[in-house]
């Protein structure tokens, strides 16, 4: 007990000596990226290697987001929060609601049938500095894990899904080329998720993990705006409906570190027997 108190007082002393607040937002504007579809730090579809908060190496930061994706036949709502610890570790929590609308009736599920999914993510920065290491091609590299738990287990089984929960594993690299105002990200993901996990994990075609790719190129247009494109490949494990790769073109508006709006045009491909699902994506985040 004594040693715990000793350690605590040492800790508070070192914090006090620095007289900088533990909760803070001192990273540069736009450098933490925004949020991706599974609630981790990134852009719309792509997970980035940056830690998604404005907290620098001695700070803790947090963000909350609401994201709406609407295609011809479906609506996906998501709410979540992300925490960045010392620009080293990112923790994310998100809940997604996938509303099948009229398509639900056509699929025999009933109109407005809604799948949901909870996603817990952990990302650890391994090495590299995406922002400041401008004298090397070495990117910032992070590894992450996402635990996904889908609802509607019986429906997932009925369409051929193997499981209603699973882990995704990814390795992400992000490089900012400040000289050209460009940000590149490439991420490899091991996954069995059908439609990000909303339709379960593994299927009747294959129950195995597959290696999928996420990529993003963003242009830093001005201090407060970023334009970009995203690509993401996805597994195709269910024989009842083909799953295709997705892409998006996005614009981010960052009036401050505490409020960010992302608007995108998305093409998610075929989803559950409904072809060419295209539409818009709108994400709002607040944080410190």
């Amino acid at each position, binding site marked *: 007990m004594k040693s715990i108190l000793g350690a605590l007082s040492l800790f508070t002393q070192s914090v006090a000596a*620095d007289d*900088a607040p533990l909760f*803070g937002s*001192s*990273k*540069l504007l736009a450098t933490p990226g925004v949020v991706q579809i599974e609630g981790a730090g990134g852009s719309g579809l792509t997970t980035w290697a940056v830690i998604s908060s404005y907290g*620098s*190496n*001695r*700070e803790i930061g947090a963000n909350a987001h609401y994201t709406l994706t609407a295609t011809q036949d479906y609506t996906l709502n998501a709410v979540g929060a992300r925490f960045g610890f010392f*620009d080293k570790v990112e923790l994310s929590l998100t809940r997604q609601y996938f509303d099948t609308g009229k398509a639900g009736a056509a699929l025999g599920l009933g109109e407005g049938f809604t799948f949901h999914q909870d996603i817990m993510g952990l990302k650890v920065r391994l090495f590299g*500095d995406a*922002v*400041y*290491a*401008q*004298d*090397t*091609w070495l990117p910032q590299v992070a590894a992450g894990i996402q635990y996904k738990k889908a609802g509607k287990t019986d429906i997932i089984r009925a369409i051929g899904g193997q499981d209603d929960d699973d882990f995704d594993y990814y390795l992400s690299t992000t490089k900012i*080329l*400040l*000289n050209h*105002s460009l940000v590149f990200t490439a991420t490899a993901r091991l996954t069995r998720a059908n439609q990000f996990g909303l339709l379960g994990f593994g299927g009747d075609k294959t129950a195995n993990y597959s290696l999928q790719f996420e990529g993003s190129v963003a242009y*830093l*247009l*001005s*201090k407060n705006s970023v334009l970009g494109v995203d690509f993401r490949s996805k597994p195709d494990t269910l024989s009842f409906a083909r799953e295709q790769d997705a892409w998006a073109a996005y614009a981010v508006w960052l009036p401050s570190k505490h409020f960010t709006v992302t608007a995108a045009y998305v093409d998610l491909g075929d989803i559950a027997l409904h072809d060419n699902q295209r539409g818009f994506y709108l994400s709002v985040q607040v944080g410190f």
Partner: protein
Amino acid sequence: MKPLSIGTFLFMVISFAPSTLASSSSLYNALGEKDGIARIVAHTLDLSFTDARTQKQFIHTKKGRLIGLITDQICALSGGPCTYKGLSMKKGHIKLGITEREFNALVEQLQTAMDKENIPYHIQNKLLAILAPMKKDIVEH
């Protein structure tokens, strides 16, 4: 994927190198040459000396002398006809215990100063790209 892309990367590095050199002197012009750079540096340090996040690092610093040194440094790095005569970044900041928070604040002050001089954002980023690697010698680990 690996061998080919590394080869492609190397090719890109080599082919970028001359254009980077060529763009250096135009960066000097885009920053408003020595007078423009001096105004940017003076405004940046005005902010650094008063901003609560950074002022304590400058208590014992002679502002005029520092403006001259950094102006020469940026002038030289951006392709201008100047010579930097100060200490290396590592020697100049040893034992100051400069934190990432303080360093980022200084970058923001520099951005504010460049905004004031109407330096376009993509030009600002070109200067920041040259200065960014100094972070590892300036910020304590």
